[in-house]
């Protein structure tokens, strides 16, 4: 091979290698149904995510594969694919971010820093038998932890926005599907749920979320995520009462590889229409006040049905509260 051709070939390879998202031989997998072969499918979806360096690369790849996505109309909103009405809750998985696995294990491939952060949580539990959760005073759980919260949810699809509502702390994520770009980096700031854009393709809502606070996937032994975390989701209504979503979480601080999970929400029976999203306020009942103790665990400081908590309690955290 002449030297000039060799240089051209190497240059082309380098060009592709430096263009994230383009050096992907595998096509984007369509929606993979959760069935008896789920374990194999899950490995495939994990491997698909691992081909990308960043969540944004993955999102752009899916967007290109969908030719930019579809524009929805109001007339389509009563079609089964877009009718997400009803009151939902997480289908299963307890407080585990990966609902396929329970207990004190994780399917996340953690970096040394991520593993150390998780070990600190495990050590805290072993040493004190407890912990303190920042959401105890109604601070938002944040995202992607949002996916694990077990209470009521509503999902509202419109042509230009989809609202993903969590009853807990009146928590709403908005997905902009009107072609909006992310907030410009120079104007962006972090928040609990970040900034989410998305597009529709073949009855699926594909999203990308960034500009997030750091946090934890859940209490207990679930790992932490950094403020560099970004997530690609792919939502689909898979039957008359079930919504599922592929989650690919990228976090260069805590994850050695993107973490793929399949999240799921089930529409609840609500024949009397009594289940509704109602306001959630930690301040309305004194008995729901929670303080953090010196050991890093949780405690009720002052019940309204006990005349003198400090005189009754054996906990120094309660005795030492200025009154």
């Amino acid at each position: 091979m002449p030297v000039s051709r060799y240089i051209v070939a190497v240059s082309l390879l380098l060009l592709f290698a430096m263009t994230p998202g383009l050096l992907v031989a595998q096509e984007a997998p369509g929606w993979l149904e959760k069935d008896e072969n789920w374990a194999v499918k899950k490995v495939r979806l994990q491997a698909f995510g691992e081909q990308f360096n960043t969540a944004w690369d993955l999102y752009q790849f899916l967007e290109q594969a969908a030719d930019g996505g579809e524009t929805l109309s109001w007339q389509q909103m009563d079609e089964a694919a877009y009718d997400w009405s009803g009151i939902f809750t997480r289908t299963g998985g307890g407080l585990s971010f990966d609902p396929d696995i329970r207990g004190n294990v994780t399917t996340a491939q953690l970096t040394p820093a991520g593993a150390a952060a998780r070990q600190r949580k495990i050590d805290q539990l072993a040493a004190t038998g407890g912990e303190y959760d920042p959401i105890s005073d109604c601070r938002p759980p944040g995202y992607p932890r949002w996916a694990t919260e077990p209470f009521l949810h509503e999902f509202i699809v419109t042509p230009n926005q989809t609202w993903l509502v969590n009853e807990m702390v009146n928590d709403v994520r908005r997905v902009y599907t009107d072609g909006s770009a992310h907030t410009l980096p120079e104007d962006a700031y972090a928040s609990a749920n970040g900034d989410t854009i998305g597009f529709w393709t073949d009855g699926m809502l594909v999203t990308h979320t960034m500009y997030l606070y750091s946090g934890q996937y859940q209490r207990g032994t679930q790992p932490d995520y950094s403020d560099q975390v970004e997530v690609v989701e792919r939502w689909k209504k898979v039957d008359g009462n079930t919504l599922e979503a592929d989650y690919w979480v990228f976090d260069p601080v805590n994850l050695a590889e993107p973490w793929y999970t399949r999240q799921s929400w089930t529409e609840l029976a609500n024949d009397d229409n009594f289940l509704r999203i109602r306001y959630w306020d930690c301040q309305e009942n004194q008995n729901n006040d929670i303080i953090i103790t010196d050991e890093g665990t949780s405690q009720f400081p002052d019940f309204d049905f006990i005349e003198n908590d400090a005189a009754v309690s054996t906990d120094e955290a309660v005795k030492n509260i200025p009154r």
Partner: protein
Amino acid sequence: MTMKRTLYSFLYLLSFILYPVAYAHHSGAMFDGSTVVEVSGVVREFQYTNPHSWLLVDVTNADGSVTTWGFEAEGPSTLMRAGIRKGDLPPGTPISIRGNPMKDGRSAGAWIDAVVAGETINPRNGFAVIPAAE
């Protein structure tokens, strides 16, 4: 009503398979999960609030004094899913109630279940996922 209660009792057992025991909004560090306390008295107040509900029960002691116990459950939506509504437990309702007590000796606990008018109610049933008809 009885059939409904039977269904909820079944779902109570199911809830331990489907979901971890309560305290979904805060750590359960303050409760002694290895101990169960049971008291009988009358409902003083049902604080049907988010993020947690509290059932206050006045218990008459042997010396005639009254101790108020507070039992924590999840918030209204989870209680509704368990079939427990605010109007089910008005003040004065006789009740026997069980909970995991506070570690620090105060008269409070995490509500496990209760017997009202001969029927068992289980707030943790509210974590069972009962799908809507397709």
